[in-house]
Each structure stands twice: as C-alpha cells, then as structure tokens.
C-alpha cells in the first residue's frame, strides 16, 4: 500500500499537468509552457551535477539543438518532430565529441570551459553566413502544430517527462552509485572498479541530449532562431537557480524549483520591467549560503536528518576536485 502511495503523488501531478490546457486560457498556458521548458533544462543540469561537475553551458547545447532543428528542417526538409529528435542527437554527439577532451577537466576548469563553449557555439553560428542565417537568424515558415498553444504545451510537457524519466533512471540504477561515488571521491571510486570517464560521458551526453531536444522544441514552438535569442544566458541561469532552489541530486527538486521560480519570474516580469532577474541571482546566493541542498533536500524524510543534508553538500566535492 505504501508503494502505491508513493506513486500517487507524481501520478496525480502528471495527470493535472496533462489536463491543464483544458482548464486555463492561452496566456497562463503559454506561461506554463515556458516553465516546462526551463523545468526540463533544470532536470538535465541536475543529472550532470550529480557527478560533481557543474556546467555553465546549458544555453550552449540548448542553442545547438535549436539550430540543429531549424537547419535540419530548412536544409534537410526534416519534419518538425524529426528535427527535434535530430536536435537532441546533434547535441549529444557534439557533447560526446567535446567530452573526450573536456571531461578530463575537473571543477572550476570544467565549469569555465562549458561557459566558454556556449560562447564559442554562439559566435560560430553568428558567423555561419547563409547556412546558419548569421546574425539575423532563421525563420521557420510556421511554428510546429501551427502554433496551437495546447499542442505546444503538450510538446513541452513531453520534454519534461523525458527529462524526468532520464533523471529517474539515473536515480534508480547503478548510475546513481557511480556518479555519487565519483562526486565524493574519485580515487575511492576508481578503486571500486568505477570507470570514471565512462560514467561522466554518459551523464554529459544524456544531459546535453535533453538540452538539445528542449532547444529544438523551443525553436519549433517560437518559429525562429537568432544567435542571441537562442544562446541567451538565461537558459543557463534560470534552470540553475531552479534546480538549486528546488534541491539538486533529486528528481522532484528541479520540478519544484521550476514551478516556484517560473511562476514567480512571470509575476515579477509584470511588476518590474527591467532587472527582475536580480531575484534569481539573489536566490542562488541565498541557497548556496543557507541551504545548499535546496528545499527538497531539507524536506527529505528518508535521509537521517536535514542538518546532515546540509553538511553532506559541504563535503560533497571530495578529493576529485582540483584547485584552480
């Protein structure tokens, strides 16, 4: 009976999410869709964070996926849905290729490299001339599903479900043991037979795959892509803050964080025309200082204590990280 109860909550939530378009109007639905986009990105970021590697390059793979989708659509005449899958594949492939080099980096060096990558992608696309549309970007003849707001919402929901599934796979299988061990102490992990590079690659590719898919979905939903709009640092900032606030190293955490911050951001945007994102910066600072495990980390009933959760993050870096 207990087991059923555990599934009940998420099932109800999923049902509510699926039925939402029938209950609200176009504007709230559009907001919800945007929240879902960020939610999927937050989930994807968390997957890699479990290995101890923090990426500042979400926008990079998101944007890469967006352009892959748009270019596949226009130049290769792929159907919109197929182009979204192609977007995910493209992002994953690029991540795998780059990963060969950058997954040997640790901590700060890895993080800064991901930040640099996002910029590099942007500039390459920006200077891609006619093929990529250059600075003006590319416009699709029409958005996917003709721009029908309900279908666009369900599309985004699909991405979130995919991301949740991925996140759960990483929680329930040996992947969790591997990534956690790597995060805590790479030497110990190695000595227990864990092939660190392989697991980092899996996490990095999965994370980037989702980011690419979401990028494809976003661009197909909006109907256009420009280097600046698609490689927007907000696609890194918001998911990061959401996952942190909601609680990293978990699946419900980023979901919770996205719901809270997504709605709050929309609200703030209306009240404060400029600089409403300052809230995100402040939230990141506060969360890191006072509750690094996020809301969900505090409320975890199955772990011994919340205080322990806080100290767990404090030691979570382990010896694997090298000083910059």
């Amino acid at each position, binding site marked *: 009976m207990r087991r059923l109860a555990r599934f009940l909550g998420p099932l109800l939530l999923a049902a509510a999410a699926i039925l939402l378009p029938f209950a609200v109007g176009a504007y709230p639905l559009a907001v919800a869709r945007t929240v879902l986009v960020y939610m999927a990105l937050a989930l994807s970021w968390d997957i890699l964070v479990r290995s101890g590697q923090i990426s500042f390059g979400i926008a990079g793979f998101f944007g890469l996926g967006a352009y892959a989708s748009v270019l596949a659509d226009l130049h290769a005449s792929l159907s919109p849905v197929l182009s979204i899958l192609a977007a995910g594949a493209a992002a994953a492939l690029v991540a795998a290729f780059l990963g060969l080099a950058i997954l040997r980096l640790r901590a700060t060096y890895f993080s800064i490299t991901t930040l640099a990558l996002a910029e590099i992608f942007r500039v390459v696309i920006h200077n891609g001339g006619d093929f990529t549309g250059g600075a003006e970007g590319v416009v699709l003849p029409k958005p996917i599903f003709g721009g029908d707001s309900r279908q666009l919402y369900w599309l985004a929901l699909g991405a979130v479900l995919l991301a949740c599934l991925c996140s759960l796979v990483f929680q329930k299988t040996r992947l969790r043991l591997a990534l956690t061990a790597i995060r805590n102490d790479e030497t110990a992990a190695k000595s227990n037979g864990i*092939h660190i590079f392989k697991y980092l690659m899996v996490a990095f590719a999965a994370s980037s795959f989702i980011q690419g898919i979401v990028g494809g979905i976003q661009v197909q939903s909006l109907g256009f892509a420009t280097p600046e709009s698609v490689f927007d640092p907000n696609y890194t900032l918001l998911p990061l803050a959401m996952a942190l606030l909601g609680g990293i190293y978990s699946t419900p955490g980023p979901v919770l964080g996205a719901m809270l911050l997504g709605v709050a951001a929309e609200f703030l945007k209306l009240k404060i025309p400029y600089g409403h994102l300052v809230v995100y910066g402040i939230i990141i600072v506060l969360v890191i200082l006072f509750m690094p495990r996020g809301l969900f980390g505090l409320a975890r009933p199955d772990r011994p204590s919340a205080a322990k959760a806080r100290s767990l993050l404090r030691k979570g870096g382990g010896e694997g990280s090298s000083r910059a």
Partner: protein
Amino acid sequence: MHSLETRSLERRFGGLAAVNGLSFSLDRGEILGVIGPNGAGKTTLINLVAGLYRPTSGAILFEGRDITGVPAHARARMGIGRTFQLVHPLESLDVLENVMLGFVFCRGLGLRAARKEAEALCETLRLGGLARELSQITMLETKKLEIARALAGGPSVLFLDEVMAGLNSDETRELIELVKDIARSRNIGVGVVEHVMGVIKELTHRVLVLEAGELIAEGPYEEVVKDRRVIEAYLGGAA
C-alpha cells in the same frame, strides 16, 4: 606463476625515486608484510600496484599478465584490491551502499543481488547498522568498512595500508583474526603495510623491508628483524 609480481618497479617524482628497482611477488593465501621507516615508499608501492600511479620504469604482472598500462578501475575489476591509509569516505552513500560498490562495478552484479551480497559480507565481518551515514560509525567499523569495500570487488590480492592504525589491542586482535581468515578462507594474497611490529610478527608469512624506495631485506619476520641493514634503517646509522 605468481598472483602478483613486480619487476624492477620504479617511480620517480621529479628527481626523487619514491620506489626504485623494486621486485617482489605475492601469491594467493600468503600474507606478506611490508615494513620500513616513514617515507620508505610503502604507500607508493600500493598506489603503483593498484594503478593510481604509473611506474616510470619496470613492470607489474598479475597472474602472469603484464598490467603496467592497465588503469586503476580495470585492475580493481581484475582482482587487485586495496584499502586506504587516510580513509577516503564516500559520505553521500551509507555503509551498505559503500560496500555494494565493489559488487556492482567489479563483479557486475545487479543492484538487488549486490545488496544481498553486501549484507552477507558485512555480517561476516560483523559490521552492522548498515543504513548509517559514514560520519556515525566507529573507528573499528571504519576499518572494517574499508576492508569490506575492498573485498566486495572479489580480489585475489589485497593490500591493507596501515589498517591497524588507531585501534586498541582488542580491536587489533579482532582485525588480525579477520585478516588471517580472509587470506585462508578466501584464498587471497594479502599485503599488509604496518608500523606495529607485533602485528607483522603474528600475521605474516614473509616480510619485505623498504627503505628510501628500495627493498633492503626479504624473508620471515624473525630473520628480517635481525638483519643489520634493517636495524640501521630504523635506528639510523651505527646500531
């Protein structure tokens, strides 16, 4: 053919040879002591065997196969286990999950099977309270956990790096019996790095004495302890 063999193993750090021209062997069921003054290269030796360091020259053979280029995680899978002197805790995992690692990643078991095996192993070692966080366990339990983690990988050779350090005499006795049992009933070749001579005397069949990275004596404890070079190494100069 020996289970583990090194040939003229050398590891330099810059100009300093931490290990130099080291050749020895270890067989299943044997307990080999490794002693020497501080800085003699004992931990470096373990790191070389385990694959955390690459030797600057020389070779390491495992069951006749040259494994000098094999990375650490693969060596763990092959059957080379070790514990750490400065405990490397995996604090985000509880005791049971720590032990499960070797079963999952070295022996390829599924999570459920690994859990059962880990529980059984912990029971054999008399390690209880498996749901606890690592910060809650005692010193003796930490040592047992280290050993359990290494055993979970199914090693045929196992190196214990100063595993008796910080234990009282009762606890030391318990671990001594444990190590003897491991070598005998699991047919594992155990390398024991220790400073406490009493432990070495009781536990080992054979002893290696290292000084400044070189092997200066080899043989049963009683012989080695009378060797003039060994005495000089420990006391420094005229004995």
